[in-house]
C-alpha cells in the first residue's frame, strides 16, 4: 500500500472489484481497500443473478456457479402457484452463485490488472480540502494511515458510510430497508431448477421469502421484510424460523446470515468533488427483486471509465465526474430502477386477498417472455375489475 494513487476504491465487493479492474486496465494506479479480513466473506446475499447480465462482466465459471436455474415460481398466500417457465430454448433465467469464490475471482482479476489490494483496512473518514475529497484516512490492521487519491470510489455497500461522511445523505428510511435473514440449508426437498418466491403478509410482510437452490438438496432459504414490519417476535429471523419449521423440519442449517437490502430510490446524486458512489452504497439495488450484483458491477465499471477520463483531463470535480451519474440514470439499468421502484410501491400496498386474486388470474399461463414487464402486462390484461388500481402499475411501465 502506497500513500498516493490515482484512484482509491473503498470496498471489495463486486462493485469495487469491477471499478478497480477497469481503472487499472485503463492505466491508472489503483488501490482497493476492504475492511474485512477476507474478500468474499461473510456472504450477505441470496446469490441470484441473470445469466445475460452476468456475462456482460465476467465469463461464467463452474468454480463459482452453484446452480443453473430454469424457472421461477411465485407462491401466493393461499398457495396458488404461478409458474414462470422459460418458453423458448435459450431464454435463460439465471445462476445462483457461490459469492465467496465469485467475489475473490473478481478481486483477483482487479489485482491481475495491476490494482493494489489491501484487506483488514477500514476507511474511517474522507480526507477533504475545501469540500473536495482527496483520499481517505484509514486504519490498516489497526495502524492509522492516509491514502491520497485523485478520485475515491465509495463501494462500501449497505453501510455507505464513506459517502455519508463526505457529505451525501445515504441514510435509508426504515420502511425502505429490507431486514433479511438467510440459512444455507442442506438435506431439504426442493426443486433444484426453480427459484421460489413466497408472498404474503403472514409469510414476509412487504417483502418475500426465497428458496434459491445451490444444488440438488441444498438452497439459500431466506427472507426480507420491511424494516417497519420488524419488531420483537416478528423479525426476519422469526418469520424464517416459522417457515423452516413447517417446510424443512429435518433440514440442516450450515450457515446463518443477516443482511440489509436498501429498496429506496438511488441517491439523488452519486458524485461529488473527487468522489463517486457505486453499487449498494449508491442504493442502486433493484427495489422489486432486491438484486444488486449486476447493478453493482455496471456502476463500478462505468464509474472507473469516467474517472479515468477525468484523471487524464486533469479535472476530477463534481461537474467533471457527472457523466457517470447521468450515464447510469439514462441507461437501461437506470430506467428499470425507477420502473421497478414504482412497481414495488404498488405491490407493498396489496393485502393477501388481492395477492391471491392476482396470482389466480395468471396461475396457468405461459409467458412468451420472462420479465417483469411481461408479467405486469398479463396482470393488467386479466384483471379488468382491478383496472383502476392497476393503473399505478400501468403508469410504472410507461
Amino acid at each position: 500500500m502506497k500513500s498516493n494513487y490515482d484512484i482509491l476504491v473503498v470496498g471489495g465487493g463486486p462493485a469495487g472489484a469491477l471499478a478497480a479492474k477497469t481503472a487499472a486496465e485503463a492505466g491508472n494506479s489503483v488501490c482497493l481497500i476492504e475492511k474485512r479480513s477476507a474478500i468474499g466473506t461473510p456472504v450477505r446475499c441470496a446469490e441470484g443473478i441473470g445469466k445475460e447480465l452476468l456475462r456482460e462482466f465476467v465469463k461464467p465459471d463452474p468454480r463459482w456457479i452453484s446452480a443453473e436455474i430454469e424457472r421461477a415460481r411465485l407462491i401466493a398466500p393461499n398457495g396458488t402457484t404461478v409458474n414462470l417457465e422459460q418458453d423458448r430454448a435459450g431464454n435463460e433465467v439465471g445462476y445462483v452463485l457461490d459469492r465467496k469464490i465469485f467475489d475473490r475471482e473478481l478481486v483477483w482479476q482487479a489485482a491481475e490488472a495491476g490494482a493494489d489490494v489491501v484487506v483488514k483496512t477500514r476507511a474511517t473518514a474522507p480526507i477533504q480540502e475545501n469540500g473536495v475529497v482527496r483520499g481517505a484516512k484509514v486504519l490498516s490492521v489497526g495502524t492509522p494511515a492516509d491514502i491520497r487519491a485523485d478520485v475515491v470510489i465509495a463501494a462500501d455497500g449497505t453501510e455507505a458510510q464513506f459517502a455519508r461522511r463526505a457529505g451525501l445523505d445515504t441514510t435509508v428510511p426504515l420502511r425502505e430497508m429490507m431486514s433479511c435473514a438467510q440459512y444455507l440449508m442442506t438435506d431439504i426437498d426442493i426443486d433444484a431448477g426453480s427459484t421460489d418466491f413466497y408472498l404474503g403478509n403472514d409469510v414476509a410482510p412487504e417483502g418475500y421469502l426465497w428458496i434459491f437452490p445451490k444444488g440438488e438438496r441444498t438452497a439459500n432459504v431466506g427472507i426480507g421484510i420491511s424494516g417497519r414490519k420488524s419488531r420483537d417476535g416478528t423479525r426476519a429471523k422469526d418469520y424464517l424460523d416459522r417457515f423452516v419449521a413447517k417446510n424443512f423440519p429435518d433440514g440442516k442449517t450450515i450457515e446463518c446470515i443477516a443482511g440489509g437490502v436498501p429498496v429506496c430510490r438511488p441517491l439523488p446524486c452519486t458524485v461529488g468533488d473527487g468522489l463517486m458512489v457505486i453499487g449498494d452504497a449508491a442504493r442502486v439495488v433493484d427495489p422489486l427483486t432486491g438484486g444488486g450484483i449486476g447493478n453493482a458491477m455496471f456502476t463500478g465499471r462505468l464509474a472507473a471509465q469516467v474517472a479515468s477520463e477525468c484523471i487524464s483531463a486533469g479535472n476530477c470535480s463534481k461537474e467533471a465526474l457527472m457523466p457517470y451519474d447521468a450515464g447510469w440514470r439514462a441507461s437501461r439499468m437506470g430506467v428499470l430502477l425507477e420502473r421497478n421502484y414504482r412497481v414495488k410501491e404498488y405491490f407493498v400496498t396489496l393485502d393477501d386477498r388481492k395477492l391471491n386474486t392476482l396470482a389466480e388470474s395468471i396461475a396457468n399461463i405461459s409467458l412468451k417472455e420472462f420479465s417483469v414487464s411481461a408479467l405486469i402486462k398479463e396482470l393488467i390484461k386479466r384483471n379488468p375489475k382491478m383496472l383502476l388500481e392497476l393503473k399505478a402499475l400501468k403508469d410504472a411501465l410507461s
Partner: protein
Amino acid sequence: MSTMLRINRDKCGYCGTCVAVCPEDALELIDAYLSLERECIACGICARACPFGALEVVHEE
C-alpha cells in the same frame, strides 16, 4: 435516568443493516463486530431494523 443502546454481540449477525438506517452515523461495523462509536440519540430505529433482534434501547437509573 438515562437511555442507551445495548448491543448483544451474541445475537448480532454483524450485517450492517443498523448502520445504514442510523440517522446519526453513530454505529460502526468493524470487521466482525458492531460498535457504538459516536453519540447515540436512542431513537431505536436500528433496534427495529435488526433482523436478529440484537439491539435494544434500555433505560437506566
